[in-house]
């Protein structure tokens, strides 16, 4: 999935985002934990994860999950897409040996009083048939070639709804 340059008028409600598959290895989990400065042992020590957390292996941590969702969203929007809010619920953990399958669709779109174009996304992270994490995201995309959501601030940037 290459970086796009989505504009608001090109987005349709119900539109599917390109799918993304990631093979998870122990290195994936440990790299994400260390990149997010999360030193807790359940993200790098299999014995600890099994004995203390009762899980079958080390597992991906919360900020790493968030980083994957951000990547998935901005792969689609391109660099001018700006995240306003991301909300996710981890129903199950992701372990080495799993394949993470990301899919998403556009649930709604709107332009706010300041002229900012918002797209609401529903994203699922699946391992096999199971949804391990459900995510909702609100991302601003340009409403015109000269619009840049990153230049918005104060009253012109309303990420909360």
């Amino acid at each position, binding site marked *: 999935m290459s970086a796009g340059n989505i504009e608001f008028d090109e987005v349709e409600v119900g539109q599917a985002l390109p799918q993304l598959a990631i093979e998870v290895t122990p290195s994936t989990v440990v790299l994400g934990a260390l990149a997010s*400065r999360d030193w807790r042992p359940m993200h790098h020590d299999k014995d600890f994860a099994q004995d203390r957390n009762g899980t079958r292996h080390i597992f991906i941590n919360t900020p790493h999950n968030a*980083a994957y969702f951000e990547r998935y969203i901005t792969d689609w929007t391109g660099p001018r897409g700006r995240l306003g809010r991301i*909300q996710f619920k*981890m129903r199950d953990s992701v372990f080495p040996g799993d394949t993470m399958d990301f899919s998403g669709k556009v649930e709604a779109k709107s332009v706010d009083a300041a002229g900012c174009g918002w797209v609401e996304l529903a994203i699922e992270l699946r391992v096999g048939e199971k949804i391990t994490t459900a995510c909702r995201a609100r991302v601003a995309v340009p409403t015109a070639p000269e619009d840049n959501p*990153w230049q918005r601030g104060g009253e012109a940037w309303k990420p909360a709804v």
Partner: protein
Amino acid sequence: MTALPEEVEAWIGQRKYEQWGAFEVERGYIFTSCSSVQNGNPIFWDEKVAEEITGGPIAPPSMISVWFRPHYWSPGLSEEALALQLHFDLKAILGLPEAVMSDNTITFYEPVRVGDRLKTTQILRSVSEPKTTKLGTGRFWVLEVEVENQDGKLCAIESYTGFGYQKGNA
């Protein structure tokens, strides 16, 4: 384990652990984070694109919690410092030795820029009645972390739902 201790009741809504990050926002961690998820967004890799789109280098918004996580060790520190201290305070006072995070919501305001120094404040929003899940019996709690930059501008509000539990009594 049914009544919530008064001390915990009193924490709800209280602003606690106002802390500055241990170091400025820097590009090394930005590159490492982007590498960890293969995020090729050019605003994080290409200074010219960053200048044009974001007015200079910024950090990925999802990295917001990275900047206030303490070092694993630093001189003079006798024990491991913990991010989200309030989460660990709750585990200790409620006698729940294990915990996992289930829900995470982050709302992004002012972009975090390279060189920023961030300040965080932790707020307990709620604690549930005892619940039993497949992990064990314990309580859910909701914590918020407000993040401001050195100019006092709000950068993000992060909300976590944690589940503290005892294993084996599910």
